């Protein structure tokens, strides 16, 4: 899998190159600012790009802007945005063009390497990866209707919102796939959402609902 990395902190960039390179990914470019990132994407057409949120010049949300732009020009490419802290607005901005091939994770998730690799692969193959922290924040903000869900259903909803599929959810919660399916139907019923099997539509639906 061919990867472009955009991260302005030199040591961190080097670390990501080392880590992903060691896993057999082909890191075709590692750059430090949005312009070089867009140029590298245009030149290499990678399968997936890993982008830091804070980049020069203002170190606020240049990474998000660049990621959104890259997604527009290369719709097939996956974009995984890494951030030092979670900001729900960033997730919303990223998902605005539709929840496909996009991820938004806290930087330290890299440390849970297996999950990180899963997320990266999911994003590269058209899926979604949203950080549990973002989901937790959304849950805190939108109480009301969620109170109707059972604790188990809330767990399922949270994992769904992260972008995970039924198999993985079943694995994580150590229940059968059939049970997951039942919970999801129940959640959609309680939240008045149309049930669908497509992961991305589930995520959009969930996030859109949570945002109000």
């Amino acid at each position, binding site marked *: 899998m061919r990867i472009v990395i955009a991260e302005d902190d030199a*040591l961190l960039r080097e*670390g990501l190159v*080392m880590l992903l390179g*060691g896993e057999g990914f082909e890191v075709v470019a590692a750059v430090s600012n949005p312009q070089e990132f867009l140029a590298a994407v245009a030149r290499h057409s990678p399968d997936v790009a890993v982008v830091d949120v804070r980049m020069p010049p203002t*170190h606020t949300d240049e990474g998000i802007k660049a990621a959104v732009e890259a997604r527009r020009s290369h719709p097939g490419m996956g974009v995984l945005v890494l951030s*030092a802290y979670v900001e729900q607005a960033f997730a919303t901005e990223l998902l605005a063009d539709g929840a496909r091939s996009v991820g938004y994770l806290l*930087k330290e998730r*890299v440390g849970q390497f297996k999950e990180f690799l899963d997320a990266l692969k999911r994003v590269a193959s058209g899926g979604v990866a949203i950080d549990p922290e973002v989901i937790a924040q959304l849950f805190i903000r939108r109480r009301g209707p969620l109170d109707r869900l059972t604790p188990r259903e809330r767990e399922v909803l949270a994992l769904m919102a992260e972008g995970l599929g039924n198999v993985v959810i079943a694995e994580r919660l150590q229940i059968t796939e059939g049970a997951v399916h039942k919970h999801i139907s129940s959640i959609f019923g309680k939240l008045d959402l149309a049930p669908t099997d497509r992961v991305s539509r589930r995520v959009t639906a969930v996030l859109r609902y949570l945002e109000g």
Partner: protein
Amino acid sequence: MTRDAFEALDRLAGGLGTALLAFATLTGWVVVGAACLIGIGLPMVQPMLSVTRSVAERERVRLGRWGEHVVSPYPAARPAKGWRTDPATLRDLIWLAVHGSFGLLLGLLGIALPVMGLRDASFPLWWHLLPDGETGSSLGIPVHTWPGVMAVSLSGFVWLAISMMCSRPIARLQSLPGRRLLTPHPSVDLSERVARLTATRAGALAAHAAELRRIERALHDGAQNRLLAVVVMATAAKRALERDPATIGPALDRVQIAAEQALAELRGVVRSILPPILENKGLAGALSALATGSPIPCDLSVGQLGHLPLSVEATAYFTVAEALTNAAKHSGATRLRAEVARHGEVLQIEVEDDGVGGAWERDGSGLAGIRRRVEAHDGSLTLTSPRGGPTRMKLELPCAS
């Protein structure tokens, strides 16, 4: 003594400048007054009041530059009012009359004395160049003979001596009306002080917010990123260990580098919030460490300070640190002198160098930040730095504990 006299002359020259402005404004008032008598001057009164106020403000700034902090009676936001209702405007006008007349005469006298002195003292050198019959002393007494010329020269030295002795008292006398009349009237002092406190409190909050932003930025861009690098590198090392233990070396090296950098960043941030040395050694010890570390040799004298609030100590520490840094960067000085003393409820700090002077305060400079900090404590910071030097910074901080 000589230096004092030169300083006083510099001061008199500045005073003469504002006195000339005051005189011009006074003349303007006479014209407007006359125009009012025939009924056409009234529209000019308001502009003249504004001019008067700006001349008075210039004098306040001038006095402030010489270390005589004159608090403006006008809060920045208040629009100009007519003099009938505002006692401060009336006091400005009285000052204008005094400074534009007596102040002008004093300024001329103060400057004329040394000029006459120099002219007469050097008279023997050039009197023969003058046409016959036109030679004479500064006072116009005709002189045609060598003994007379020598007497003129002698009188020149007398003028210079008088100038040396009197320029300081004259300068003080000249600035007296300003010091008395341009400050708020005693009766309004309290309400003005409340207004000032409100303003400085807002300044303190702004300084606080700016400080928080700075700390957040320092933590995020520094320590947090370094620690994230530690996590990433440690993960890489772990994976290397699983695959091929021989390749783990470089990854572990980088883990160590990143962790050390994180520590250094954290230390820097902690030091910028509250220098640990203040807690360990107190203000005197911390200042002496600063003086020892200064690239320009610094003579430090610290009096009995007693117990001081920690916030006052921190402000004093950062002020001296800033002064030393600025001196090292810009002054070209070879020697620094810092005096720290407590007079009752006021902590006084003076830092002086023997450099080239010309220091000024930019917006957003370290000094501007220090000033906000000082004003938040209701203290005052004065920087005098005439071109040619020396630069002197004086800090007064209330320190009731």
